[in-house]
């Protein structure tokens, strides 16, 4: 697979389609699996690592789902290409930064990704645009069945699927939704919402998962426990809370328009203004401003920008994407200049102008 060809598409998590996609960016389910006859990743010798990588690669590619997947040898990729896959949420930061034999198999739609030798031997991920946890779960269950009929997953009748970290044992499932919650951030209600989520055993993370900062008002909500409930129950546990959060965010947006129309209009217009005229800009600031503009468009305060364009800019202004599109490697300073130039050119071309 040529990574450069992916750069032209936005990838599943920013496709901007699917139910409730004004607030729910994407729905994701991942399963942690290990091969029974090898030590867990942190305890593997280099030889074990190579053997597990080869064993899983062969078993995956000869399964029927494997025929639709492209395999990327992550261990041999340049740093910028690994970062590129992280930005597209196809591999984790930990997987990108790890050492030794490892890889990822992904499908053309970028919905399915199978990471080999991450924290566990195999991490299967399935991502759908918008709110579609059920669909993502159905799809991953099929993939898991196919791989599981060819790979002896480490399993114990009492503990379920055995994982390197006891926090994942049992189902090995992590069910998550990526939400865009700018109005809850502006109205300072977000902490209150998160505190109540923690009380019902749900975790809140930033854009790139564990330990990452919440950038651009994007938050991942996921289950925290994996043992003692069935996969369906855990899918429901996360799924049940999403409509509530959507409702809170919608009400906060309505409140902003009703009570502080001038203020919020000013905020989103300034954000839009900076994006159109800045001469140098960081990825973080870009994301923050794009987040505000995205809300402004959804509230009808900015008329001439499409949500699809904002989504596309969200990914294309990130460091590895920016360099891939430019075709050269740039240091941080030059990236900030190139990013500002890219944004100006995009908005200059008119409201729905192509970013190319």
């Amino acid at each position, binding site marked *: *697979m040529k990574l450069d060809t992916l750069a032209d598409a936005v990838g599943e998590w920013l496709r901007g389609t699917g139910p409730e996609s004004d607030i729910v960016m994407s729905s994701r389910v991942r399963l942690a699996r*290990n091969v*029974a*006859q*090898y*030590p*867990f990743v*942190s*305890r593997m010798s280099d030889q074990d690592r*190579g*053997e597990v990588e*080869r*064993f899983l*690669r*062969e078993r995956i*590619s000869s399964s029927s789902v494997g025929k639709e997947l*492209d*395999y*990327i*040898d992550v261990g*041999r990729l340049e740093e910028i290409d690994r970062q590129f896959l992280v930005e597209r949420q196809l591999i984790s930061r930990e997987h990108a930064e790890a050492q030794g034999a490892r*890889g990822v198999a992904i499908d053309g739609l970028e919905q399915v990704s199978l990471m080999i030798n991450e*924290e566990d031997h195999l991490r299967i991920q399935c991502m759908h645009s918008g709110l579609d946890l059920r669909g993502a779960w159905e799809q991953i*269950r099929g993939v*898991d*069945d196919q791989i*599981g*009929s*060819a*790979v*002896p*997953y*480490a*399993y*114990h*009748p*009492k*503990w*379920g*699927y*055995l994982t*390197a*970290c*006891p*926090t994942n*044992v*049992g*189902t090995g*499932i992590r069910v998550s939704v990526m939400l865009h919650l700018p109005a809850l951030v502006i109205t300072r209600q977000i902490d209150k919402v998160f505190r109540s989520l923690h009380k019902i*055993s749900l975790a809140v993370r930033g854009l790139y998962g564990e330990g990452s900062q919440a950038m651009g008002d994007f938050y991942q909500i996921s289950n925290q*426990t*994996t*043992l*003692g*409930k*069935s*996969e369906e129950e855990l899918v429901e546990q996360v799924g049940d809370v999403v409509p509530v959060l959507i409702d809170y965010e919608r009400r906060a947006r309505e409140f902003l328009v009703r009570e502080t129309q001038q203020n919020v209009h000013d905020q989103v217009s300034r954000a839009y203004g900076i994006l159109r005229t800045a001469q140098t800009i960081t990825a973080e600031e870009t994301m923050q401003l794009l987040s505000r503009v995205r809300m402004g468009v959804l509230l009808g305060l900015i008329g001439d920008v499409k949500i699809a364009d904002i989504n596309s800019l969200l990914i294309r202004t990130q460091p590895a994407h920016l360099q891939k599109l430019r075709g050269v490697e740039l240091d941080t300073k030059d990236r900030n200049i190139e990013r500002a130039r890219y944004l100006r050119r995009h908005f200059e071309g008119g409201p729905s102008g192509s970013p190319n």
Partner: protein
Amino acid sequence: MKCQECDKQAVFHITELETGEVRELHLCEDHARTYLNQSESAEGDDDEKASGGGLTGPLTVGQTADELALLDKKACPMCGITFFEFRNQGRLGCPHDYVHFEKELEPLIANIHGAAQHTGRKPQRPQADEGSQLSEGSQLPEGTEELTTVIGLRRSMQEAIACEDYEQAREVRDGIRGIEDRWLPDAARDPGSPPAGPPTS
């Protein structure tokens, strides 16, 4: 959850290390107060600690440290990880750790998940090889413990090779093959000489 001493709601969840075992207590406010007072007076009494006699409550500090040190040295016979290493890294070494350290892990897992029994899906087992001696008329068990013993066997094979005891190494290797053939039919495997894989993109 109910208090284990009465019918009230348990609001205190205490983990005690006793004679090398981890014990969990779930108590209501009243019973927790009684319990904690007991343990404080026990800790405060040096004579009793020294004699070690008549103590039915929690362990004294010295004993707890000893027990912890012993527990830390406990190593998994398959992957060799000690409980100390696990406590430091937060990552287990192999699937067998869940069996070998079950007593120590159980309270920890129960604390994380609020449960200690898997109720979700089970893996679809690869079909046992009918031609294999070991699988004659037998079904593969649900758990994969047997296959995981290969991790320990591989280590002893390496040790035998290091000691130039090639006969022993061959025996162990045949043992590994027998188990792998049973669990992984259509796979030709030789841990010593992995065949080259297909090219990757």
